[in-house]
C-alpha cells in the first residue's frame, strides 16, 4: 500500500466534502487512484476533464505513485 496526500479543488472538494485527505491505496498510478476516488466519493467529473499534479508538478495519468506523494486533481472553473 502507498500512502498519499490528496488535495481537492472546486467540484471535487464539494463532492468529497473536504479539501484534502491522507489515503492508503493499492493504486499504481494516478489514473487508478482517481478511479478509486470516483468510487469512494461519487466524483462526477471524467478524468479527461481534469489536470493532475504530483508534488506540485503537472503530470500525465500514468504517473506512478510513491509513498508520501501529494496529489492534486484540478478541474477548470469558470465563475467570475
Amino acid at each position: 500500500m502507498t500512502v498519499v496526500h490528496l488535495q481537492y479543488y472546486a467540484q471535487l472538494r464539494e463532492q468529497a466534502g473536504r479539501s484534502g485527505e491522507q489515503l492508503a491505496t493499492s493504486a499504481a498510478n494516478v489514473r487508478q487512484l482517481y478511479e478509486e476516488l470516483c468510487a469512494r466519493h461519487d466524483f462526477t467529473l471524467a478524468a479527461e476533464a481534469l489536470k493532475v499534479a504530483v508534488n506540485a508538478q503537472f503530470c500525465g495519468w500514468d504517473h506512478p505513485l510513491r509513498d508520501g506523494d501529494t496529489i492534486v486533481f484540478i478541474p477548470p472553473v469558470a465563475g467570475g
Partner: protein
Amino acid sequence: MRFRLSGAELDTASLRDAMRHPGSGGFCSFEGWVRDSNEGREVDGLSYEAYAELAEAEGERILQEALARYGVTDARCVHRTGDLDVGGLAVWVGVSAAHRDEAFRACRYIIDEIKHRLPIWKKEHYVTGESDWVACTHVYREHEHELHHHHHAPHMAAPFVPDYSRQVRLREVGEAGQARLAASRVLVIGAGGLGCPVISYLAGAGVGTLGIVDGDRLDASNLHRQTLYDARDVGEPKAMLAAHRVAALNPSVQVRTWLDPLHAGNAVEVFGQFDLVIECTDDMRSRYLSSDAAVLSGTPLVLASVYQYEGQLQVIEPGAPCLRCLWPHEPAPEAVGSCVLSGVLGPVPGVLGAMQAMEALKILLDLPRPRDPALSLVNLLDLAITRLPIDAKQGCALQGGCRAMAQQALGRAQEEADIDLVFDSLEDAIEAGFQLVDLREAGEIAAEPLGITASRQIPATQILAHAAELAQGRQLLVCASGRRSAHAARLLRAEGLDGVHSLAGGLLALRVEG
C-alpha cells in the same frame, strides 16, 4: 427641463424658436450627425442606448454649469436614443446669449461635456453586417484648455488633476512607470465579480485607456460581489455602469465599451487594439476565446476564475503556454460550475480580481516577477496559494502548438457563428441587403416555389462554378433544410467569399415559424 432624451426625430426649427429671448443678441447651435465611417470602418447606421435617469440628471447638470460658467441666457440640449441612419441628427445643442463669444463657448462646453459625461452608448452598424457598441466618451475638452474664462463662475472647482504620488514614490514605478501606465491600453472582459476590482484598480492607477466588455445587465444578485455598482443600477448594462464609474473615479482615463460579448469574428482584431487583456467573465467559452485571441494577436492575457471559496489564476504572456495547454478543449458547462449554480462568497472574486489587477500592473510596469509559466490555485478557506509550473513541452506543443490549436478553434467557431443566419421571412433577408440564391434542384423549385424572386438559381452541386458571380455583396444561400446551403457556404468561404451565408434551417424553418 433644459436637457431631454428623444426617441423620435428632432425638429430643429421649433428647438431654435424656443431659444428666442429679448435679451439675446445671438444664437449658436451644434448638431451631431451620424457619419458613414468610424476608425476606418464603414458605418451604415447607429443605435443609441441611454441610462435615461442618470443621463437626464447629468445632462441637466451640464446645462446648468454652462449657464453659470458663461452667463448665457438659455442653453438646451436634446439627445437621440434608438436607431439612426447615416446623416441622422443624433444630438442638438442650442445656446442663446447677449454676445456671440459666450454663446460659442457655452455651446462647445456643452457638447464636450455631454460626450464625456453622459451615460449614452452607441452601437455602430457596419456595412459588413456586424455591429459594435462604442462608448460616446473622449477625453479632450476645450474648456480645460481655456485661460481666464472662469470669471462668470468663481465658485467652479478647478479641473480634477489625478495624484499618483503614492505609487510614483515606489522606486520600480516612478515618473517613467506612470507615463507607461498613461500610455497603456487594457481590455477588461467581464465587469462582474472579478472585473470590478480590476477596473477600479486600473482606473485608479491611471491606465490611459480601459476597454470594458460586458453583455449583461446588472442583477440584484450581483451586488454582494460586484462592488462598482449600487442598488439604483439594477437593470442597467454593466459595461455602461462601469464606464460611468471609471469616469467618476478618474476622468483622465479614456473608456471604450462593448455591450455585446466578443466573438470569434472580432476577438483577435479587438485584442490587437490593446496592450494587455484581462479575462474576468464567468463564461468558459469566453475564456477559451480570450486564450485563442491572445495567442493569435500576441497580446498578454491574465485569466482568473473562481469557484465557491477558491480560484485559479493564469498569466499568458506571448509565447507562453495557453489555456488549451492545460485543458485542450472547452469542457461541457455542467463540468465547470458557475456562481449561479455553485454559489460564491463575495470576497473570493474580489481577491482574485485584485490579483489580476496586480499581475496586469506587473506586466505593464515590467516589475520583477516569476518568468516560468504557472497555474496558481488560491484556496481562501485554507489561505493557501499553490503555484503549479506549466511544462511548455506538454499541452498544445504535442498537437502542433498553441497557434495552430487557437487558429483551428477560432476558425471552427467563426464558421459556426456567422455562416448560418436566422430570418423570420425571406423578405426580411432581402430588406437586410441579402441577395437570395436558391440552391434547390429545378424539380424542387417547381414543387415549392420560393414565393419571392431569388436573384439566382444555382443547384448546390454546381455552386463553385458560379463563385465569381457571388463575390460581390451579401448572399444568402437557401435550400430545403439548410444542410446543402450550409455546406455550399463553407465551400465558398474557403474560396474567400466572406459575404456568403446560409439560411439556418432552410425553407423548412420558415414554414414552421411562419
